[in-house]
């Protein structure tokens, strides 16, 4: 029995397809925009990733409080560098993970993060006078009247002022050592009793080094020593090139899949193609709305999920063909095809979802990003196949765009 061709519904179908293609184009375009699209991981955007381990120093053991304070101090230091969206987070019991996208000078950043920056003033008798903990202010200055080289000027707090005044009185005419992390950086001779709590560190450094030292002193010293466990520095253009290539490859792969589906499944294949475009824009939209990070393995995962998204459609179409072969009418073959395919799609996808959940919990870094993107990809593909393809197929059937088994790719009949 031939189904009547309904121009009205057919028009709706065409318009719907155009909307899907337009939204696909729009979301692809949107996602490609680096500033306003999906957040990129360091392996794509470039930047510095560091994993540091806190090591016990003589007087301070590693506990949550020490880690929290170290993080706060590193954050202060990083903020002064003007890095956008830094991630500084605890990992495990004694580790700190640092992610800095978009760096001008990674060497400087690493220098600043890792330094304990414990400042000490020590008298000639070896007794500690005052430490960086009593600092109120520190800044780099240039003043030829005081010194030909750039220097760091300090201002102590009330307690530091008193300690410093007493020491300059006691050691008048003698040298005082200024130590940074147990290394002597300056050894000035006391020429005045300083009661205002002001001091300068003059040393063998240029203005940039003086600024760096001032920054370290301002932010305070780390309560524990930090050691590097892992460091990954990626230049911004390297990842960008890879991303561009991946996008082009995804486009080419998508086109091949579309072509194959249309050749094999005819009108139904075209509908699957529409569902695929819909799926792609859905995934990109969801990714841009969630606080997820797209990594290179993540892109590969997404591209893989395109291939797997087709699977659900293939299962459905093969089911419909089976039902047609067993003598059902097109209408009932479609309905029972969808119904029977549903269970297989559900079970098959849930097992893959389980893998992504395990990865998300146990893995870290790019693999975790991969797990999230694959998870979102699978959910979106299930939704597309079960809800969207079905809707389009029914509409196409009602409009008369699918009239017989031949429209689903059945050869005989």
């Amino acid at each position, binding site marked *: 029995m031939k189904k009547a061709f309904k121009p009205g519904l057919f028009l709706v179908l065409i318009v719907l397809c155009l909307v899907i293609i337009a939204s696909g184009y729009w979301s692809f375009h949107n996602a490609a925009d680096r500033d306003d699209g999906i957040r990129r991981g360091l392996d794509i955007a470039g930047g510095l990733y560091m994993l540091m381990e806190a090591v016990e120093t003589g007087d301070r053991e590693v506990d949550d409080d020490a880690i929290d304070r170290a993080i706060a101090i590193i954050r202060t230091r990083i903020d002064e560098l003007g890095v956008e969206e830094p991630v500084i987070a605890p990992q495990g019991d004694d580790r700190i993970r640092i992610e800095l996208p978009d760096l001008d000078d990674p060497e400087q950043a690493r220098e600043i993060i890792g330094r304990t920056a414990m400042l000490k003033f020590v008298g000639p008798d070896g007794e500690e006078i005052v430490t960086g903990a009593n600092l109120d202010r520190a800044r780099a200055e240039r003043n030829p009247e005081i010194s030909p080289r750039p220097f760091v000027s300090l201002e102590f707090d009330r307690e530091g002022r008193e300690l410093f005044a007493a020491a300059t009185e006691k050691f008048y005419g003698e040298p005082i050592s200024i130590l940074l992390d147990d290394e002597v950086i300056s050894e000035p001779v006391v020429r005045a009793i300083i009661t205002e709590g002001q001091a300068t560190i003059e040393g063998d450094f240029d203005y940039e080094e003086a600024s760096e030292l001032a920054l370290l002193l301002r932010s305070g010293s780390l309560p524990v020593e930090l050691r590097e466990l892992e460091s*990954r520095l990626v*230049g911004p253009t390297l990842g960008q090139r890879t991303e561009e290539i991946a996008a082009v490859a995804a486009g080419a792969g998508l086109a091949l899949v579309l072509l194959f589906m249309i050749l094999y499944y005819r009108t139904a294949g075209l509908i699957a193609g529409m569902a695929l475009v819909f799926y792609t824009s859905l995934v990109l939209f969801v990714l841009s709305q969630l606080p997820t990070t797209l990594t290179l393995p993540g892109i590969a995962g997404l591209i893989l999920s395109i*291939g797997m998204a*087709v699977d659900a459609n293939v299962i459905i179409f093969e089911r419909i063909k089976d039902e047609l072969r067993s003598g059902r009418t097109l209408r009932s073959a479609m309905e029972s095809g969808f119904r029977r395919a549903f269970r297989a799609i559900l079970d098959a996808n849930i097992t893959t979802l389980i893998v992504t959940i395990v990865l998300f919990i146990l893995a870290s870094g790019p*693999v975790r990003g991969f797990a999230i993107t694959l998870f979102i990809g699978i959910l979106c593909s299930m939704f597309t196949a079960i809800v969207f393809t079905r809707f389009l197929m029914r509409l196409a059937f009602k409009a008369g765009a699918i009239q017989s088994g031949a429209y689903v790719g059945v050869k005989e009949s």
Partner: protein
Amino acid sequence: MIDFIGNRRKAYLLSIILIFAGAISMITVGLNLGIDFTGGTVFQLNLGDEFSLEEAQAAIDPYEELEGAAIQVVQGRDLAGDPTDEGLIIRGPYMDDDRRDAVMEEFQNRFPRMDMADSRVESVGPVIGGELARQAVLSLAVAIVAMIAYITYRFEFKFALATIFALLHNVLVVLGIFSFLQLEVNVPFVAAILTVFGYSVNDTIVIMDRIRENIQHRKKKDYVEVVNQSINQNLVRSINTSLTTLFVLIALLVGFHYFIGSLDLIIFVIALILGVFVGTYSSIFIASPLWLNLQDYKFNLPGRKAVGN
């Protein structure tokens, strides 16, 4: 209808040979573990100028850690297909930040046009290397247990067992090939293996679903025929899905190989491609026949002929 069950021994034999060869390769030469697992340093540098391997070697000669380090030339292309600046990749043992900076400075002095924005330096300490390896094995183990639980809940325990056997088979075959070809194994490879997990289970479960359904619709439970029928009903779907997945993966492989030239991502894609092949093969030739064997262990004894034509 193709008689998959009748020919199952040939498939078993092929798989056993593959796994056995892979095992020999893994015992004798082992896996080529990358810095993610062993710890180490990788420099990927765009030197901005043409260079010879000797020049690059001369640059690292002063650094004894890098003695005997592998140097590899990377040649990428831009989107128009024109070759971009040559780069190189050096893989060495773990070096601390001071030593790494020294190497970088050495290159900067020798190659003033070196492009830092198109370079990377990754260094993994030995502690982390061991941890990542443990993390990888743990993820695989947990994923297996979780999948057994789910499949047992939705189907039955023997389905789960057969699926997991097929899965382990896939992982062993891919690992064997990686060991044989000495392709570098890093963290993304673990992600790829896990995806292969998901993919092959996906493929197997769709067939299992058919078996489950076909058994329900029969009075006389002739398992051999049911399984053969189920595999055949799914054949087109298995092939088509593998094809579409391969289309995208091969597009990715060609893209990365031709335009980027760096091996890391290519290896990731190769693992996925191998996984799709092996996963499809095992879901058809291994998983379901194995389930039959588990269902009735006497099934394999002589005198009992497999039915089906």
